[in-house]
């Protein structure tokens, strides 16, 4: 009888959490929670420094205006209004330029000593990078929304409906996510944010411009055309473009998804290895 009465209070005492570690670290559960904490941290930064988001959209807006009104008249794509051809390319350009942010952000965290602190914590070794690449992917969602509105303002129309468009954007987000892992590796390989920026552009340029994002590959010299047709950004553009313009989409979507998953499978372990090694 007496024991039954004391039981509740014993339970209460036990359930009051101490400030000590709850469990030995490791395991997928903790990796996920650590990653969520890092995503939260990176998104708070975006909210606190909205300029970052504004800058992220300024460049694509300029590209939209430039290609729509300056070059657009001179570029003829058979059977398509150029603006409808252009906007999928712009969306892809947005994620590729946005991925530079991953490199710059990580390089900054490193020079400020934040990575050093994280490495002394019992957190998952992959969470700093996963938190960064996921947060940058969320940021892309927001930039996509702004760019879509921008597109509609300059005459962009969906020919295959809203659902395929949303699906195509998801394929593109996955591509952006895979690219972020490449830039995570770069961000950890350079001494500071400026170097990250400088190192990123030579990679971004051939990916974005030597592609089918803004023009068809037909007019390019043969080796370049081969590259432009068979590289991952063009694959992503092909997928979203098919989702916008209609016609056969499944193959293009699958090719892009395979590219992106392949990149994540190779680049994520590479970047995490770099994170463990970096000093």
């Amino acid at each position, binding site marked *: 009888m007496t024991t039954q009465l004391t039981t509740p209070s014993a339970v209460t005492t036990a359930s009051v*959490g101490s*400030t*000590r*570690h*709850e*469990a*030995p*670290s*490791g395991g997928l559960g*903790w990796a996920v*929670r*650590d990653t969520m*904490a*890092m995503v*939260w*941290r990176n998104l*708070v*930064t975006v909210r*606190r*420094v909205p300029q970052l988001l504004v800058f992220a959209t300024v460049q694509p807006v300029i590209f939209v205006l430039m290609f729509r009104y300056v070059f657009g008249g001179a570029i003829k794509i058979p059977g398509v209004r150029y603006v409808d051809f252009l906007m999928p390319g712009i969306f892809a350009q947005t994620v590729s330029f946005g991925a530079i942010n991953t490199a710059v952000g990580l390089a900054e965290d490193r020079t*400020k*000593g*934040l990575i*050093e*602190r*994280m*490495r*002394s*914590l*019992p*957190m998952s070794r992959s*969470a700093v990078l996963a938190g960064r690449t996921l947060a940058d992917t969320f940021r892309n969602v927001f930039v996509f929304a702004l760019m879509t509105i921008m597109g509609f303002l300059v005459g962009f129309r969906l020919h295959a409906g809203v659902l395929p468009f949303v699906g195509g954007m998801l394929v593109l987000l996955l591509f952006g996510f895979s690219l972020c892992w490449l830039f995570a590796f770069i961000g950890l390989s350079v001494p500071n944010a400026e170097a990250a920026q400088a190192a990123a552009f030579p990679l971004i340029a051939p990916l974005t411009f030597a592609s089918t994002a803004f023009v068809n590959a037909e007019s390019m010299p043969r080796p370049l055309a081969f590259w432009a047709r068979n590289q991952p950004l063009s694959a992503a553009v092909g997928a979203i473009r098919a989702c916008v313009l209609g016609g056969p989409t499944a193959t293009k979507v699958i090719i892009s998804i395979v590219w992106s998953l392949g990149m994540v499978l190779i680049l994520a372990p590479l970047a995490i290895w770099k994170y463990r090694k970096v*000093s």
Partner: protein
Amino acid sequence: MSTSAILAEDLHKQFGSVQALRGVSLEVPTGTVLGLLGPNGAGKTTAVRILATTIRPDSGRAMVNGHDVSKDPQAVRTSIGLAGQYAAVDENLTGHENITLVGRLNHLRVPAARIRATELLERFALSDAGDRPARTYSGGMRRRLDLAAALVTQPPVLFLDEPTTGLDPASRAMLWSVIEDLVADGTTVLLTTQYLEEADRLADRIVVIDGGAVVAEGTASELKSRLGDTIIELTYPHRAAVDAAMAALEGHHPTRDPAGAAIVRVVMQDGPTTLRSVLNRLDGALVPEAVAVHEPTLDDVFLTLTGAASTSSVIGPSTKQSKKSKNSGAQ
């Protein structure tokens, strides 16, 4: 478990062509403070980073709170707090968010981490600034925030890498008293510093390293007693008297206080004879307000040990790592 919270044996670490550590051994008994002293580039930070598991040693062994840093780094990480050379705070997060984040990454639940953050902000006199982004903080506030974040899980072992470098005296004094409180509560601290005053005040034992090797170790007074010079310090009420006293002590090589206080210093070269001669010369208006006889400061020890290391007149450290100098002995 051993009674040493930190034990390092023969640590070596090379970065490219730079030999950062060439066989450093340390032992910090539980609940004590070890001051790791040395000039820039001596290897202090490298030693701390190995012990805090952020880099691995090339060779050697280290145990922190009973866990091997190479074999079980995650266990070490649950036992330590690290406050780095430059405050590792996220400028865009508020003070409260910074501590909460480190708490979450230490696997506290979010509510527990928040409560702890509030407590720590209060303890470090940052409550009022707790909801402001850390980029608005002064240098001293950042250091306090950094230290607060390192304490989020009440770790039994704390690494402080030059915690007060670049701080104003008030901020420094505040950090010192916080560290003293932590030690009073039983925390083991490894503190690196370039400030001898800091080591003198906080550390139970001091290890001096230079060029990646231990050149001396002992208590502050042990280290100081290895130096000969004792100094007579004459305090005057105002600066005008200092000039006159300097003139009167011609021949004893008097020196002024580098900080500009109305103090004249004379090296007591011949023991009490010097003291007597000095006081004989100071009569009338030159009689000082106060006379003190000072043993050498840690600054003197530091300069002698690290400056002399390269010219092979290291003052006989009894450790295995000493590079040379059995013959040069004391002086």
